[in-house]
């Protein structure tokens, strides 16, 4: 009986203590016609050895390609210490830290994480993380609706340069509360959201403007102008950012004259493996005045009976287990392990290390752009400066080219035609610090071959 310790003697002793004749007797309150059958569609159990061999074979099937896809998930070097520590039983198998005295490890780690994210984003507070960047945006939108006292609107301005999947998820989640995401077109030359594109919305009531930096195309928005426009028009600013980029780029807290109001993003680049899409974590930070509108767990520092400092869950009155239907959100987990990994990762990298990572990613992507645009018929699409991702136009449909590259074990980027029909011949590419010159050359050679 895998993972079940009971011997036959144990079972008999336990049944005797209960006063039951068999385990089956314990289910005697259940109407007989509801009893399950034999679950015949389930396979026989395997030993750990067999299950491991099966999964190892499956994992090998998917391995070995050279990947140049970014689009919201980035392959970075992860120091070995990160997950060797994060998977220590004490982190890995601990429960939610409701019993604070027996959970100081997790709680202090979260407090350090909150400090980390607040410092990276330039904000006053952070929660303990939400599911991922996309669902984090949906929480930010709902939060902005609560927080913007100057607006009565359920509408939010969302530029098309925001990650398409973030827009979709936010729509899927928020439309249940009749929130409307109003699209803002992008400048097709620059690949940016021009402040001019916002002019038509001036004077209307919107709760917030979402600004992604770098945007989905890798391009760098004029965040200062956009932020100032929003504030001038009584919109809150929700920033969506890549944490690696924040080693280099102006933190949202310093955008424009007042800074962004809420910052969210995908935390995966900070020490979390690609891992087929998760578990990642969404980070969420805000200005002081909005803290009580922020959903999710928040840890505070306090003192114990003896005046010794300690950490505890705080502001629980916002949460579902206390406030039930009046909670700020139904969320009642955070992505604890991923967030722990990020905290360790950021400590190992430090400000200079993270900046060096960001710089190498950027330089590698620039080098890749050079090598690929040297191939006949390939060109860069947008004029705006970018950070570590770029859009290239191909002489053929991107989907076909990418399929041909995949046959050569090169995952050549993200097909923008999936989300932008007018960019069906465009790919979004990325080369992080994990790629070496030979990798870039391999891509260029394969592309040349495919396009020949």
């Amino acid at each position: 009986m895998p993972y079940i310790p009971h011997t036959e003697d144990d079972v008999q002793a336990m049944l005797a203590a209960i006063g039951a004749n068999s385990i089956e007797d314990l289910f005697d309150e259940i109407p007989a016609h509801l009893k399950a059958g034999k679950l015949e569609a389930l396979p026989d159990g395997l030993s750990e050895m067999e299950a491991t061999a099966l999964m190892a074979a499956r994992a090998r099937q998917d391995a070995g390609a050279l990947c140049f896809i970014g689009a919201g998930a980035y392959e970075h070097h992860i120091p070995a210490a990160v997950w060797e520590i994060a998977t220590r039983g004490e982190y890995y198998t601990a429960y939610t830290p409701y019993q604070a005295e027996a959970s100081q490890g997790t709680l202090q780690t979260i407090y350090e994480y909150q400090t980390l994210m607040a410092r990276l984003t330039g904000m006053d507070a952070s929660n303990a993380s939400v599911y991922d960047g996309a669902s984090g945006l949906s929480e930010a939108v709902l939060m902005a609706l609560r927080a913007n006292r100057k607006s009565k609107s359920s509408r939010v301005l969302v530029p098309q340069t925001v990650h398409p999947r973030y827009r979709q998820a936010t729509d899927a989640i928020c439309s249940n509360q009749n929130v409307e995401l109003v699209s803002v077109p992008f400048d097709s030359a620059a690949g940016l959201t021009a402040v001019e594109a916002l002019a038509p919305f001036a004077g209307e009531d919107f709760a917030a403007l979402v600004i992604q930096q770098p945007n989905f195309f890798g391009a760098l928005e004029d965040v200062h102008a956009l932020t100032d426009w929003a504030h001038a028009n009584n919109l809150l600013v929700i920033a969506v950012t890549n944490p690696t980029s924040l080693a280099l780029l102006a933190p949202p807290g310093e955008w424009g004259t007042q800074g962004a109001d809420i910052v969210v993003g995908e935390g995966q680049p900070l020490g979390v493996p690609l891992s087929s899409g998760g578990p990642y974590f969404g980070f969420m930070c805000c200005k002081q005045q909005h803290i009580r509108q922020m959903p999710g767990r928040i840890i505070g520092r306090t003192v114990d009976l003896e005046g010794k400092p300690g950490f505890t869950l705080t502001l629980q009155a916002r949460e579902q287990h206390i406030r039930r239907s009046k909670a700020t959100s139904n969320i009642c987990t955070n992505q604890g392990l991923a967030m722990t990994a990020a905290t360790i990762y950021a400590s190992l990298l430090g400000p200079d290390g993270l900046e060096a990572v960001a710089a190498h990613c950027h330089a590698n992507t620039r080098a890749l752009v050079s090598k690929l645009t040297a191939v006949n018929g390939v060109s860069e699409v947008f004029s705006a400066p970018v950070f570590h991702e770029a859009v290239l136009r191909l002489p053929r449909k991107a989907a076909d080219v990418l399929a041909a590259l995949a046959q050569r074990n090169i995952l050549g980027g993200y097909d923008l035609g999936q989300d932008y029909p007018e960019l069906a011949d465009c790919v979004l590419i990325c080369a992080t610090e994990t790629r070496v010159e030979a990798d870039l050359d391999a891509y260029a050679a394969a592309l040349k071959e495919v396009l020949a």
Partner: protein
Amino acid sequence: LNHQLIYELSRPGRRASAQSPKALPAEALADIPAALRRQQKPGLPEVSELQVVRHYTNLSTRNFAIDKQFYPLGSCTMKYNPRGANRAAMLPGFLGRHPLAPESHSQGFLACMFELQEFLKEVTGMKGVSLTPMAGAQGEFAGVAMIRAYHEARNDDARTEILIPEAAHGTNPATAVMCGYKVREVPVNKDGDVDLEALKAACGPQTAGLMMTNPSTCGVFERQIDAIAKTVHEAGGLLYYDGANLNAILGKVRPGDMGFDVIHMNLHKTFATPHGGGGPGAGPVGVSERLTPFLPTPIVGKDGNTYRWLDQNDLPQSIGHLSAFMGNAGVLLRAYFYARVLGREGMIRVGEYSTLAANYLLKRLEAIGCTPAYPKRRASHEFILTFAKEAKELGVSAMDIAKRLLDYNQHAPTTYFPLLVPECFLIEPTETETKEALDEFVDAMVKILAEAKENPDLLKGAPYTQPVRRLDDVKAARELDLIWKDTA
């Protein structure tokens, strides 16, 4: 001994150099406009690699964990998290796979996910499964959003209310509100069953659905489930099953057979994936036939021998994507491993042995003088004790007893939940703890009950053996200190 913050260990210019690529010349960043650059370094800690390893290793030891202690946490199913599942999910082929990798480079992963979908269908008796929700609460959201989408698709737009028994988890009402519904609570009777007459009275054309768990958070099986399902369905509502308590009936009763239309499962409970100090979890949803068109995307489909993602194109009525990619893949892989190791017989044993353990622990605790909330009922995988008597007579609260348990190296049970039972413990031992572990918990309770009589102040001051004494939660909320400031 170690409670400095990592930031307090920081010294300007210190670094874990092995982790940092070599510095590049400034020209490498010349194309990024100065106005968009950060002016000051972010205040990340500047520490050495050994400092980081030592700090977080030491910090971790300031936690209870399943790998170290027994956690009898009702409705949270803290069972053993197989280390084999961790190893399998951390295989480089899985860790290195980009979520947007083409299907040609994803067949291994997709095969696991497809099979997991099939396993979850079989074990719950549902017709369709989506793995994508990233936690129980997101699964709940997906479930209620599907109920809403179902009614909308039928233009049945008068349904504005979700019914919820008063014993329910707080996420249920919070979720209903996130999906744009009003919540109406339904009372529970003295034996822990739903008040059927009250339910009948509450049902009507405004009823979108009922959210409940069975066994309920009262730790008992809802015996009137057939009548409840009939009542709600006849009113045109749908039935939502909160899978938090699925462990109790795994392999014994299937929500689909009880008439539920939609269920979420907490894989970090029933399928033994780690809680990780609060996450990540995974909350797949299962649905009856009529809700399958609305499942959240993506789902894994199979064409011949090839697996592929089913997305909006395949499921135009889907409630959509709830995340950027496909959900908490690493958690799902761990659950897949667990399901493969358990197999058919193993799944059935989970319900059996978790129920055995709960009933044994209940009877033993009752025998030493604890008061069950529902003494006439079988325990499901969990049960409720109430310390209302002790609170009144001795002045010790359930919280005092909970904190004192920490001193006996036992994690406290869930306290003060469900809200309808005063001064309560909700206790769930799970199937993976030995009889001896349960007996040790009983021994600790014997001692604590004696202490409560002899020296109640001892309990009020507990715990004494943890890294900190009892913490001031009021101060924490009133004088918010959420991030560390160098000047503090």
